[in-house]
């Protein structure tokens, strides 16, 4: 049951990811990316990371992709124009590099990792995954967690400053 689901989600994930990079229309790419994030969330559930699966759907498929779609709509993008010899050469090089990287990855995975402390299937945790993650996050990782809030604040200020319209400087002076 679980391996079957894993293969199903994995095939869906790879297929939608390929469609993301192949499709000409950026909106369609973004929607395929949403689908691939949802299948990744399914894989997280199978790997007993329930909290991350939910966060994946809420943050990635919900927030981040909506941001992408809004920007695509705002810029009113047409289909990509992908013609010409230079682009064909670059595309060929890109696929070759990707294939080499895949080969390298296959070698690494095939070699077999030092499995590390393979503990037998963990005893069913008495508390849920979210509770356990919260305990770790607010104790051992408290400082990085607080730094994260500063990072988000900086990103928010930076995004607002960057995206602010500069076409009418006189208005801001008057205001």
């Amino acid at each position: 049951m679980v391996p079957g689901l894993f293969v199903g989600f994995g095939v869906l994930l790879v297929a939608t990811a390929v469609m993301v990079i192949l499709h000409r229309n950026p909106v369609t790419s973004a929607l395929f990316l949403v689908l691939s994030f949802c299948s990744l969330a399914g894989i997280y559930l199978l790997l007993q990371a329930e909290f991350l699966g939910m966060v994946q759907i809420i943050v990635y498929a919900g927030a981040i992709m909506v941001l992408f779609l809004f920007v695509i709509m705002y810029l009113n993008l047409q289909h990509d124009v992908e013609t010409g010899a230079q682009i064909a050469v670059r595309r060929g090089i890109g696929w070759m590099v990707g294939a080499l990287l895949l080969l390298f990855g296959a070698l690494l995975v095939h070699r077999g990792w030092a499995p590390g402390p393979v503990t037998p299937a963990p005893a069913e945790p008495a508390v849920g995954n979210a509770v356990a993650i919260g305990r770790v996050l607010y104790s051992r990782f408290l400082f990085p967690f607080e730094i994260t809030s500063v990072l988000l604040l900086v990103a928010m200020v930076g995004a607002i400053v960057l995206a602010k319209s500069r076409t009418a400087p006189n208005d801001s002076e008057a205001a």
Partner: protein
Amino acid sequence: MIPIGWTLALSAVLFCIGVVGVLVRRNALVIFMSIELMLNAANLAFVAFARQMNSLDGQVFVFFVMTVAAAEVAVGLAIIVNVFRLRETVFVDEINLLKG
């Protein structure tokens, strides 16, 4: 339990798709989406190893990676919007002011 090799192979395939997307596409937004694919491939590897090691640290790290990804997307999309205002394009090979 799913063998860790399967998950790592899936993560490697996803990462390679992201690399190809960055190299092949010209649209800055699609390149950004490919970067998101690579980040998610790394996250998948983290979750797989967290499961293998029976430890929650990997999952906490994925949580931080997601935060960084959200910040990166917000700033990056703002930059793309700005570039579009200045140059009327999002195709990366037409944004070549720094070319010598």
